[in-house]
């Protein structure tokens, strides 16, 4: 009772006092799901850091067009191969960093060195350049040759992830990121907000947004509510359940794919019939539009359809419990221990409704005759199951995972997920290993068809896993903004693309 009156009192005063706070109408407020730990450009591959840093503070050599336009120049104006393992890039002239120094080949070389430097754990380095040795040669101030061992046929694509920092940047995490982008970090009030303001000396077009304030709320519904009440202009990630207003809420493919990894090393999952039965036993369609957003697509591969080599011929396995049971019975007749208890492992808060999805999957599998139990783990524990080395006496495990590949090339996925040495691979198939190696080294159409063959082999021949859904994200954009989220919104928000109505 008392609380209510406090609320009422507060509210009536609030109405009179809150309204004038809106500053210039070219300022925007963006609400992210997590507070930023760091704002170092070399960590920009983490989605929330990327949403602040990428192309706003720090720019990259090349840029992947979110609306499907392929790879575009950014700080590199053009590129060509010198030989199998060396690429030459011509850099844009007249670009200055926000600290006033001008951009040149020196800076590119330094940035490449920095992301793989010892004593500094850079996610970009680990993600895009892990396992290969990169050397650079500065031809002149605006020309640079980059050599990779082993050869990297998609070097320009990889460089779309590399943030360029000035050559003076120390080999430790910086809290004052300097970049060539149209915005500078002007305030970082830890725990409250991060503020970017527009630069006057940017080399490209002057964007419309003058100031961007990033705030952080971990609760989905609060983020949606903030855009609804006008406290924020853009929430790149909201829950599907809150995305109820067609005027402000957008679904966009977020390049995430949900799948169940089958442990092909342990009986009974080492039997292909059992794996096929696992694919047949679930009614994928039933999820769509219920606990999985209607805009999601059923998957046949671990990468989204926009990726090269994606195989349109692959068919989603039909829901056929009878056939699943028959396959199980067949396997059982051959002495496969199909009654062994299989552990279905899910990751808590992996995506909206993950718990319901896992419960539904469990129910379907049990219905088809699998002896299965469900365990949900928070990320740290889940990783122990998902990544090598696997425990010795783990028993048959089926692990739910969501994989993100927004880069358009399967190379960023296949080795890790399917090669014998791949960190999250529970497959030991020499044929697959060879196909991955071949495709990685190939270029052009050859590359496309090699990947395509691999997908077909994995899906139809050996049934390596249970592919489920290509997911969509939901975002809420204030009606005063002229902005449509794309697949890129999962990793970056280019403030320069935001306009006002």
């Amino acid at each position, binding site marked *: 009772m008392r609380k209510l009156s406090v609320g009422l009192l507060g509210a009536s005063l609030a109405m009179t006092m809150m309204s004038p706070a809106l500053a210039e109408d070219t300022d925007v407020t963006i609400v992210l799901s997590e507070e930023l730990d760091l704002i170092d450009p070399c960590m920009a591959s983490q989605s929330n850091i990327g949403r602040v840093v990428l192309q706003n503070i720090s720019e990259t050599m090349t840029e992947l067009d979110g609306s499907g336009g392929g790879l575009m120049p950014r700080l590199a104006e053009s590129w060509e191969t010198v030989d199998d393992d060396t690429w030459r890039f011509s850099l844009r002239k007249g670009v200055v960093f926000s600290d006033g120094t001008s951009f040149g080949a020196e800076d590119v070389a330094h940035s490449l060195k920095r992301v793989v430097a010892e004593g500094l754990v850079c996610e970009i380095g680990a993600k895009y350049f892990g396992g290969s040795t990169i050397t650079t040669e500065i031809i002149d101030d605006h020309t640079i040759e980059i050599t990779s061992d082993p050869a990297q046929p998609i070097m320009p694509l990889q460089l779309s992830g590399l943030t360029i920092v000035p050559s003076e940047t120390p080999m430790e995490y910086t809290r004052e990121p300097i970049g060539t982008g149209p915005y500078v970090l002007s305030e970082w009030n830890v725990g409250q907000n991060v503020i970017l303001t527009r630069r006057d000396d940017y080399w490209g077009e002057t964007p419309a947004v003058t100031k961007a304030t990033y705030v952080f709320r971990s609760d989905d*519904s609060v983020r949606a509510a903030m855009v609804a009440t006008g406290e924020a202009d853009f929430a790149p990630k909201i*829950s599907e359940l809150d995305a109820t207003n067609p005027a402000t809420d957008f679904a966009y493919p977020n390049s995430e794919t949900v799948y169940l990894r089958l442990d092909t090393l342990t009986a009974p999952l080492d039997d292909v019939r059992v794996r096929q039965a696992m694919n047949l036993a679930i009614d994928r369609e*039933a999820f769509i539009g219920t606990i999985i957003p209607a805009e999601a697509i059923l998957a046949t591969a671990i990468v989204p359809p926009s990726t090269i080599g994606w195989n349109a011929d692959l068919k989603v396995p039909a829901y056929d419990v009878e056939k699943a049971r028959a396959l199980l019975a067949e396997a059982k007749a051959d002495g496969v221990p199909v009654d062994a208890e299989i552990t279905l492992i899910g990751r808590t808060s992996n995506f909206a409704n993950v718990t*319901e999805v896992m*419960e539904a999957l469990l129910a379907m599998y049990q219905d088809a005759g699998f002896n299965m139990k469900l365990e949900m783990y928070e990320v740290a524990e889940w990783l122990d199951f998902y990544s090598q080395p696997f425990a010795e006496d783990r028993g048959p495990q089926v692990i739910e995972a969501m994989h993100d590949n927004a880069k358009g090339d399967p190379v960023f996925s296949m080795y890790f997920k399917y090669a014998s040495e791949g960190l999250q691979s529970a497959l030991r198939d020499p044929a697959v290993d060879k196909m991955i190696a071949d495709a990685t080294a190939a270029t052009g159409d050859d590359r496309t068809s090699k990947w395509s063959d691999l997908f077909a082999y994995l899906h139809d021949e050996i049934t390596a896993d249970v592919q489920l859904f290509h997911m969509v994200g939901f975002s809420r954009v204030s009606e005063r903004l002229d902005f449509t989220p794309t697949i890129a919104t999962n990793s970056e928000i280019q403030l320069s693309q935001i306009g006002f109505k």
Partner: protein
Amino acid sequence: MTDTDQIPDKALEKEPNAFAQMMRMLWHDKVALVAVIFLIIVAFCAIFGPWLLDAAATKQNLRGRNSPPFDMAKGWLFVLGGDALGRPLFARIIVAASNTIMVATGAVLCSMVIGSTLGLIAGYTKTRASQIILRLADVIMSFPSLLLAVIVLYMLSPSVTNIIIVLAITRIPIYLRTTRAEVLEIRERMFVQAARVMGASDMRIIFRHILPVVFPTLLTIATLDFAFVMLAESALSFLGIGIQPPEITWGLMVSQGRPYLTNAWWLSFWPGLAIILTTLSLNLVSNWMRIALDPVQRWRLEIKGKKQ
């Protein structure tokens, strides 16, 4: 030397037994009576719920999800609506009572037994052991309970038993400190000295003389704590480190239904209401017990109905 000192003499003949007297006091406090009846129903659900309704509670129907409440078309089990997987909420709430009550009861019992035993030792002995126990209580008190939850649930697994362990550990200091404080006082009472003069052993003094006197206080705290533990369990679920599906508790149901608050309120409302009503009942019963077990206050419950 109060004026009512001799009254029992007169009443000696018609002294009712303790149970009947309790029942009478309960009858006089209608609010507490309703609370007790509600708790009995909850206990019934907890014991027989899974046995009666488990099949109904796990039957999924993805295409008939989030069906609204009070629609009898789908059968009485759907009177409170359906959840995100199309399972009847009514059945699920009843089945979830089992785990919810088990977690709460287990945690309260464990912490009460361990806490009060340590408290008895700490209060009764004047030795170093008592100091160590007190420091231990301090450590537990300032040990972040969430960290404890993560540690236990990481090393073991998020099962009902382990949730009980986590919650029990965090509640131990409450009983420990209360028991110790009471024991320090009771230890000096005459009847304890009388027992000592008779040659009673420490064990006998502790368990026969001190414990029964502390017990009503512990019982009152335990009732309150029962409510607290239920809420703590639901907060753990909210933070994603509590019980995990396919196990269900009310707390888990609330946190699972949370995203639907704006478009399918009933998902989290009914289990939330179950928690509120149960904890409220426990609080009311605890309040009633505090009076009923206190001879000085007892008249408040005795005279109602005869006067006013």
